[in-house]
């Protein structure tokens, strides 16, 4: 169990180092020409959930896709090459940050329109169950997506078809700059609305990777046993701006109070996990430092690799739009 818990921390550190490094390069180079939504501060949701999946389970996400992609085992070099628009990218430079995919790892795709991958996961989950397979589909989305009509439609559809789908709501309190209080009434939570639709649902501290992981294991067992859909509402917080590499809680920038952001940064999921593990492993901080160095080398290597790769051939502009290409 300890090794499993250490692995959760390690995966979070890897994602943090990758994203912080990418954010620096994104800002300084102006070469990753794709709108990029960093998950820095939200690593526990992606890692806790994805570590509970099997390779055969599929994960879909919304635009904030890097952390679940990496947590699910998506290829780092292919992701970075995609950000640089290269042919070696996971979507061969056609998708960008918001359209990542790694089918071999079970990362089935990310997409950018709020809520649109929610029913997609229901359909995949239903197809799995129809084939008699004990597999689940997982879909990550934010609190903002729960305001889309398709969220309510999908809860209902999943419940009535008993689809083995795990809905993962990363409630980070803001839709771009709009606070949840301006968008959703006080009272019924996202969890409550799922439950009202007939979907088993729980709220979990989304910055506690161990709690998220346990909840996801329970949820996925429920799905695979044929007990129907499940929703996790995970409270978390993004540290950076909605899209782009910067912080946006400084003086005069703000739609969110600096004190609020600082309080959430103090609840860093990596620090909290290390605090827990330190009781059993006094050397954990040294281990984390070693990981930071290791993953720093890995992401710098991936960036160097991506930069060396060729751009797609312009002659192949239309490839894939149709198969066969129409006359």
């Amino acid at each position, binding site marked *: 169990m300890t090794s499993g818990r250490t692995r959760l921390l390690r995966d979070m550190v890897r994602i943090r180092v990758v994203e912080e490094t990418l954010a620096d390069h994104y800002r300084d180079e102006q070469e990753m020409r794709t709108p990029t939504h960093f998950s820095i501060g939200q690593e526990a949701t992606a890692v806790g959930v994805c570590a509970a999946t099997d390779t055969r389970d599929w994960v879909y996400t919304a635009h904030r896709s890097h952390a679940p992609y990496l947590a699910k085992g998506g290829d780092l070099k292919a992701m970075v090459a995609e950000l640089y628009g290269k042919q070696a990218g996971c979507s061969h430079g056609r*998708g960008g940050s918001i359209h990542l995919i790694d089918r071999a790892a079970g990362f089935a795709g990310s997409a950018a329109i709020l809520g649109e991958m929610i029913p997609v996961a229901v359909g995949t989950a239903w197809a799995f169950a129809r084939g008699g397979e004990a597999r689940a589909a997982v879909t990550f989305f934010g609190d903002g997506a729960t305001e889309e009509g*398709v969220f309510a439609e999908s809860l209902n559809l999943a419940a009535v078809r008993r689809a083995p789908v795990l809905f993962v709501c990363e409630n980070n309190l803001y839709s771009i700059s709009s606070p949840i209080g301006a968008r959703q009434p006080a009272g019924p939570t996202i969890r409550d609305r799922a439950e009202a639709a007939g979907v088993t649902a729980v709220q979990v501290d989304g910055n506690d990777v161990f709690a998220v992981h346990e909840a996801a294991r329970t949820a996925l067992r429920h799905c695979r046993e044929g007990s129907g859909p499940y929703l996790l509402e995970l409270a978390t917080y993004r540290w950076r701006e909605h899209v782009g590499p910067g912080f946006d809680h400084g003086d005069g920038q703000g739609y969110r109070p600096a004190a609020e952001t600082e309080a959430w940064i103090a609840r860093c999921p990596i620090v909290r996990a290390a605090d827990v593990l330190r009781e059993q492993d006094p050397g954990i901080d040294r281990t984390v430092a070693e990981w930071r160095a290791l993953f720093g080398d890995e992401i710098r290597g991936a960036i160097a690799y991506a930069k060396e790769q060729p751009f797609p051939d312009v002659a192949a502009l239309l490839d894939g739009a149709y198969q066969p290409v129409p006359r």
Partner: protein
Amino acid sequence: MRTLTYWQAISEATVQCMAADESIFIAGEGVDDIKGTFGTTKEAFARFGPNRVIDVPNSENATAGFAVGAAAGGMRPLLIHTRADFMFLALDPLVNLAAKWRYMYGGDKGGVPVVTRGVVGRGWGQGATHSQSPHATFAHYAGLHVAAPASPADAKGLLVQALTGDTPVVLVENRNLYPLTGEVPAEASGIPFGVGRIARRGGDVTVVATSLMVHEAERAAGQLAERGISVEVVDVRSLRPLDDRIICESVAKTGRLVVADTSWARYGFSAEVAAVVAENIPEALTAPVRRLALPDSPAPVSWPLEEAFHPGAGGIVEACLRLCGQAPGELPALADVAAGFQGPY
């Protein structure tokens, strides 16, 4: 060859494809009911039951997204809307996901071949939001195939092609075509998208039409023959891809073009056909292009307004006569194909 009605041809294609491929399933509101989507899903439900002919919640957006996810997982969904106006609620999954899926994930991860049938057309008093034909809306987007078959054989062949292909497809069916009969091959052979047909040969005027308007054009051509005008009717069959060649070859021969559509002219099918001719063979035209389409208002309900709103054979006759320099008005009025419609809806 034996004859079938248009609805029987669709039913036969559906059943044959479902028997051959267990991954095909039907999803739509009420597809399992006693009327069976104008009869088209009745036999499929009788043969394959509720696990493959699925009545879904009134959630067009989620159902289309569900179909995308099922297709990504290896299934072949056939979605049905008995009023195509509801397809606007499914635009996001069809346009932002299905149409783009293969391309935006790099072209080599597979597509999501979601097939959507949308029923369109006037019954009586269907009005503004129950009789529109959204074929041009969907035909705008790269990544989709869009067809509006006019004959029973094409209704079967294009549906077979859709259910065996790799591209998401929107098929538009005018409800007034369901009772029409025609020869239909017994086997399930596909008709490729992007290949039009000459519905009637002629040399003086080309009428390019789709769906119900092919029949209106053929009836108009019969009457115009009595005036010594020979009309060639081109049935494009599919709007995307569009068979530019068959259109241009016909217009190069006749020098005159009328485009007949069941939707609006602006930015629509008739605009596209006119553009194809203007771009490829501008020198061929001996007269201006005429477009026969819906007037620029929503569809009305009241009977006389509805009669005035929908284009038909009479309008095509008049347009062709004018292009040929003849005065209209001396021929008996033609009743539209849809005029034989019996209630209650």
